[in-house]
């Protein structure tokens, strides 16, 4: 039964990756090669919208790696997403060149407007794509590494850690709002023209960005699955369930957490970098703690500790948001809050986790009835039901999200 379930999880990962890769090919085709009058035509705004959702899904998957598998409830993951986005935004700003409103070949418009005389040192290099791409990985990764190094070494856990991650993103929000930070202040970075020499607004470029997001998400799914399945992944869950036990076995729990946190931040940064050219703007609002909390909701709705769950959650909640804010804009936040409460109360394992429970129970019942028909020992099957309904490997232990005390 256990091996069956492992195959089940593998199959689910494989299906997700295939669906994403198929979408990366089919959606651009239906947008570019099909006539706009055809029923199969996908209009550009849908491509951009779903592309944006895929970036959110990548962010939710990144959060799931630390929250679902290691119990670190980060309420500041939006910060890593936004930093990746800013790194990409800086590249896009420098691609504008002399086509800006003020026509300055070096300085972006907002710098001319704010009377900058020369380019600040931290904008050097961002005219090269490779450098910007490196920064997309390095800046969120480094911040997560330094932050995590201090937090995990001081054994800050649980709600205290959540609060300081929130403080981190709030501090960055305030910093990026300042005009003299050199990141465009309140307005952020926008009015992009080109990416790698292609017009950002063009249909073909948007389709390509969509495809890039889908492929990146597929790769992130494979990477997360590989991490979670490794011995390190088992250790990660062990730290989540009984941290002091891992310490007394000789593992350095802080390093275990630090690695996952850093990898997760880099994934979030990549998500942000793909997001910015698709939405055409990045501003300090992305650092808003409320954004990071929304990511937690997507992950909870889809099912933390499942790889596919956060992706499902991000796509569904955002699709719901797009629809809801169109119909009843003033009630969206109430709906979101209600959704979180409802999921916590009725679907504690999220959609995917719940599906697993139902599926497991149905399978066990079927096995039980088959066994009964075959006239097998009636004592055996009921025991099986209890077991399979109890837990899936790697799932959260029944004692809840709180780590078990050692003593």
């Amino acid at each position, binding site marked *: 039964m*256990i*091996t069956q379930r492992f195959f089940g999880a593998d199959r689910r990962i494989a299906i997700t990756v295939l669906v994403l890769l198929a979408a990366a090919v089919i959606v651009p085709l239906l947008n570019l090669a099909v006539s706009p009058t055809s029923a199969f035509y996908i209009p550009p705004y849908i491509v951009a919208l779903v592309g944006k959702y895929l970036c959110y899904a990548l962010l939710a998957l990144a959060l799931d790696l630390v929250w679902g598998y290691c119990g670190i409830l980060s309420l500041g993951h939006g910060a890593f997403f936004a930093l990746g986005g800013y790194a990409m935004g800086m590249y896009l700003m420098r691609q504008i060149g002399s086509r800006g409103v003020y026509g300055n070949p070096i300085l972006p418009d907002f710098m001319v407007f704010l009377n900058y005389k020369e380019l600040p040192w931290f904008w050097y290099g961002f005219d090269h794509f490779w450098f910007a791409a490196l920064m997309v990985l390095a800046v969120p990764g480094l911040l997560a590494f330094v932050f995590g190094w201090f937090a995990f070494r001081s054994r800050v856990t649980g709600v205290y850690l959540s609060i300081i991650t929130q403080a981190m993103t709030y501090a960055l929000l305030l910093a990026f709002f300042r005009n003299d930070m050199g990141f465009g202040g309140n307005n952020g970075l926008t009015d992009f023209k080109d990416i790698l020499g292609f017009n950002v607004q063009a249909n073909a470029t948007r389709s390509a960005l969509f495809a890039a997001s889908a492929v990146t998400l597929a790769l992130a799914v494979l990477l997360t699955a590989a*991490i979670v399945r*490794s*011995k*390190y992944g*088992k*250790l990660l*869950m*062990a730290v989540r*369930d*009984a941290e*002091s*036990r*891992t*310490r*007394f*076995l*000789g*593992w*350095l*729990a802080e*390093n*275990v957490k630090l*690695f996952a946190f850093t990898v997760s931040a880099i994934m979030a940064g990549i998500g942000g970098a793909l997001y910015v050219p698709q939405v055409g703007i990045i501003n300090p609002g992305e650092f808003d703690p409320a954004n990071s909390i929304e990511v937690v909701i997507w992950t909870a709705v889809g099912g933390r500790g499942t790889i596919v769950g956060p992706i499902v959650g991000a796509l569904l909640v955002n699709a719901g948001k797009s629809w809801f804010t169109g119909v009843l804009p003033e009630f969206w936040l109430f709906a979101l809050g209600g959704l979180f409460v409802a999921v916590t109360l009725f679907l504690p394992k999220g959609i995917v986790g719940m599906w697993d429970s139902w599926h497991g129970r149905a399978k066990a019942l079927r096995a039980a009835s088959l066994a009964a028909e075959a006239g097998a020992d009636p004592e055996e099957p009921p025991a099986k039901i209890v*077991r399979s309904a*109890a*837990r899936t*490997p*790697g*799932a*959260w*232990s*029944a*004692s809840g999200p709180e780590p*078990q*005390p*050692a*003593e």
Partner: protein
Amino acid sequence: MSKSNTILYLDGVSVSFDGFRAINNLSLVLDKGEMRAIIGPNGAGKTTMMDIVTGKTRPDEGEVFFDGQVDLTRHDEAEIAMMGIGRKFQKPTVFESHSVEDNLMLALKGPRSIFPALFHHRSTAETQRIDDILGIIRLGDKRGELAANLSHGQKQWLEIGMLLAQDPKLLLVDEPVAGMTDAETEETARLLKDIARDHSVIVVEHDMHFVRELGVKVTCLHEGSVLSEGTLDFVSADERVVEVYLGR
């Protein structure tokens, strides 16, 4: 007292929490290969003593030496675990969302850094070792079972198995038979006696029947220091011990 040939050496150790002296000038010596039972009423400082030895609590004063020369007060839990001290908690603490086999795999002696764990493939030697331990702890038929589905007694055994997988020199075992049936208790006594053949062991236990079964030297703690030491018969005949256990 000479430290050579001792596996654990505590001298004049004291620690207080908010003015309460949990350990008070405690001295205790364990020879290499010895098994010792520690008894004492609630609050005698048994668990605090284990916290000090395993690096969870730093003593205010006193010496704590492992293997004759290593000063344990200078190291943290993970370092001490790597030196060869394994600890079983009072409440069985296993990784409930992992299978019995994976629990042992995470405990097996080996490199303890991230990248080897990330690219780890189980070798035949490791599988062999896991099989051996499963046999010792009598869980051979449960290897694929999630630890959460084990009975209380089986979890205690699994935790002892995880200690064995670490291949420690010294095992600290806190109340191994709490909540066990009589049959399980006897089985556990046999298990610990097996283990004591090639390890040094400290067992903290309240169950006198179990301590008698172990048949080893007994140390009785009271208010953070040693009250009496010797065979179980000697200790239980000691008037002060009787007084502490039964009240004045």
